[in-house]
């Protein structure tokens, strides 16, 4: 390999500035890094939605939204009756679950989109007006909205119904395939929201301390890229899980 170090050296007046890269170079590199992470996340989202659609499509033994189980009391309740009073365990009945609340699902999504919109406007405002105080306030609001969506996301997860059943020869509660797939989708959204809350809190603190300001805004843009992707992925997930959930 032929190299020419002399001309490069001369071009920089004899000083090597490669040790101190310009911010726009670092910014471009980090932007590519964020895009690549988003690319990996896209594969993850597609795999989760593939799981949802696959299980719905195969509908094994018609159990996409149903399962043999015991209503009213846990299996162990009946087992105790059997032990103590000499009764008998009732036959398992087919329990059907309905689709989860589309309203709650979309509420979490709307909150996520709202927070993405706020963080995007905040960043645009910072770049246009250099007003850091306004950015800090808006980043704080976006973070608060995200925390609210986490709360509702967790409420959504708690509302996924369980069925008392015998599972792997042990007595336990179980979820149907639909509920399991919803848990994967909603769980993934909540994990992403936790990451956004961390990033939002960081942006708020950093801008309040002046680390992010009217001239040093590239981290705000990087976070915004990821934030918008999470909002888009949340919309895609809600669209899929609320429109093609039941089997007619």
């Amino acid at each position, binding site marked *: 390999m032929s190299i020419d170090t002399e001309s490069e050296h001369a071009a920089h007046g004899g000083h090597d500035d490669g040790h101190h890269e310009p911010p726009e170079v670092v910014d471009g*590199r980090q932007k590519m890094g964020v895009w690549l992470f988003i690319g990996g*996340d896209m594969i993850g989202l597609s795999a989760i939605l593939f799981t949802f659609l696959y299980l719905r499509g195969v509908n094994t033994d018609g159990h996409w939204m149903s399962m043999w189980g015991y209503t009213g009391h846990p299996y162990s309740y009946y087992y105790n009756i059997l032990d103590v009073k000499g009764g008998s365990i009732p036959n398992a009945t087919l329990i059907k679950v309905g689709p989860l609340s589309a309203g709650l699902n979309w509420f979490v999504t709307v909150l996520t989109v709202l927070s993405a919109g706020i963080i995007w406007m905040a960043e645009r405002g910072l770049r246009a007006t250099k007003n850091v105080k306004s950015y800090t306030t808006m980043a704080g609001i976006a973070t608060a909205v995200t925390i609210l969506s986490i709360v509702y996301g967790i409420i959504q997860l708690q509302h996924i119904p369980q069925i008392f059943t015998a599972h792997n020869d042990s007595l336990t509660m179980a979820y149907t395939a639909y509920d399991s797939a919803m848990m994967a989708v909603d769980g993934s959204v909540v994990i992403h929201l936790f990451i956004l809350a961390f990033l939002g809190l960081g942006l708020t603190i950093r801008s309040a301390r002046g680390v992010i300001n009217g001239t040093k805004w590239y981290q705000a843009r990087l976070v915004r890229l990821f934030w918008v992707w999470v909002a888009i992925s949340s919309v895609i997930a809600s669209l899929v899980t609320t429109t093609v959930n039941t089997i007619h």
Partner: protein
Amino acid sequence: MTTTLEHTKTASIPQGGGLARRQNFLTGLIGGAIFAWLFWFLAHHFLDATSRTWSDEVAASVTLGWIIGFWLGIGALNAPGRWLIGKNNTRADDLYLAGQGQGKSRYWKFTTDHKVVGVQYIIMTMVLLGSGGILAMAIRTELIVPGNHFVNQQVYNGFIAVHGMLMILALIVAVAGPWGNFVMPIMCGARDMAFPRLNALSLWTLVGAAALLLTTLAVGSLTMGWVVLEPIANQAGVGMDFFAMAIIVFTVSTTVAGVNTICTVLTMRTKGMTLSRLPIFVWGAIIAAALGLYAFPYFSLVEAMTLMDRTFSTSFFVANAGGEGWLQANLFWLMGHPEVYVILLPAVAALFEIAAVMSRKPVFSYRTAVAGMTGLAGLSILVWAHHMFTTGWAPTLGGPFMLTTELISIPTGLFFLVLIGTLWRGNIWMKLPTVWMFGFIANFIIAGVTGIYLSDIPLDDQLHGTMFVTAHFHYVFVGSVLFGAVAALAFWFPKVTGRYLNEFLGRISFWLVFIGVQVTFLAMFASGLKGMPRRYSSYALIFEHTNFITTIGAYIIMAGMLVLLGAVITSWNKGEPSGPNPWHANSLEWLVPTPPPLENFDVLPVITEDPYNYGEELVRS
């Protein structure tokens, strides 16, 4: 001559570093142990208050606690913490994290210098290969005679699963880890990787994952192979929770490493280093990284769902609640086949590099080599269901998947074309890297041809699940990738240490491993052709002789690997000094001093030619 291990002793230790000054591998272990106990305590009291000490919920919580504590203890979470409170690293902090002035101790720390990370990967690869190798010897000892009771059947099953996964992890990082870190940034003309802290994170996350994987042997009850098929995985003991979390953590490591590799190559090449002038190894590394970025999210998801089925009682793979085992097989093999090429491509690309340097010729048809690697990566994502031909899943798709699988032989054939073309009529320098390269060529032919047999559905119906398949993929991984990895080690060893890898011991090792591979796996092919199933701890008398021969062959391989380990250890400090460019190569890593300085180049070079102009050099001379 100073070595890489010693060179930063001459610089003083910078003032920065903060908390990192008190953190190292030991504090990582302590942090991991404390958090594992804390999570065990919390899980035991809040998630599962029954008398069972090791329920799945508790086991999963312990694994989570371990990795969080390990990250905290080693210092991996310092940077996110500082970022959160609005602090940036100073130049002194960065220099401290890069290991300046810290001598050998920096190899036990969260050090960001890509060369240190490269050496850490060398050590990590040896640990993984050694652990997996010991398990292989135990497995083969069990199988030396029928009805042997060297280990009980449950332990044997665990050995099979952990051996497989350890070796897969080892080979994923065997070439891309050490050389994708140590030499690749220098080859591009970069001062470091794009994201040095993420680089260290990927290494130490791998360490955390490996620890979880090895722990499965202690907690036990792994009843399936490394593919952790459902529903067996759902019925396994708590070792499965450790196994699943190890894989999830490992995929974090590979994703971070993949992003880092791609960003480094695409954004940090020095002036004049166009894509067509990139050393061919860099192409192999970046294509493998991109393929890993595609494949490993599936791996992470399938293990997360296995863990959820076991801890939250979801039903992804439980048929009586609407789940399906084939879903697991699909998701697993969507990862599983590309992963073979994530392993193979860096090794092949390293051999292209070695072939050019050692035959004093340009890489034959450079663009064909790049096209072959890209084509192989592209095709590899379209062949996953050939692993499921005999499962009964979508029989109508058998034909298309057979076709795509057989198409793989075209880019694979291009690899041979490029290698043979590069060596053809070259002035071949028969040094240690070249010897291992020829071993690769011989073994890879057998691996490739038997792969074509298995892609054929009628034959696969007969051979699937037999030792024939085991022999085939061992020719790929041991006969091919391991040979490529050792060739790469012998080739770049002088750049790391300033010394040659001991030629005499290296050749003894080569012949032992080469002969051992033929004895072991040709006999294993024979067992498979006679119908011996995989993963059994005992077998019928009809398989007695071939199994005895296979076990003897495995011992020979182990002897060869021990000789290689001896060669590495003795050569590292006492080997023959090599100088900065022992192979008289043209690529950038050979044009910087040995050991390379902290930021590689005093002045960034400007590239005016490709790195393989040996022919023109000869004409000019």
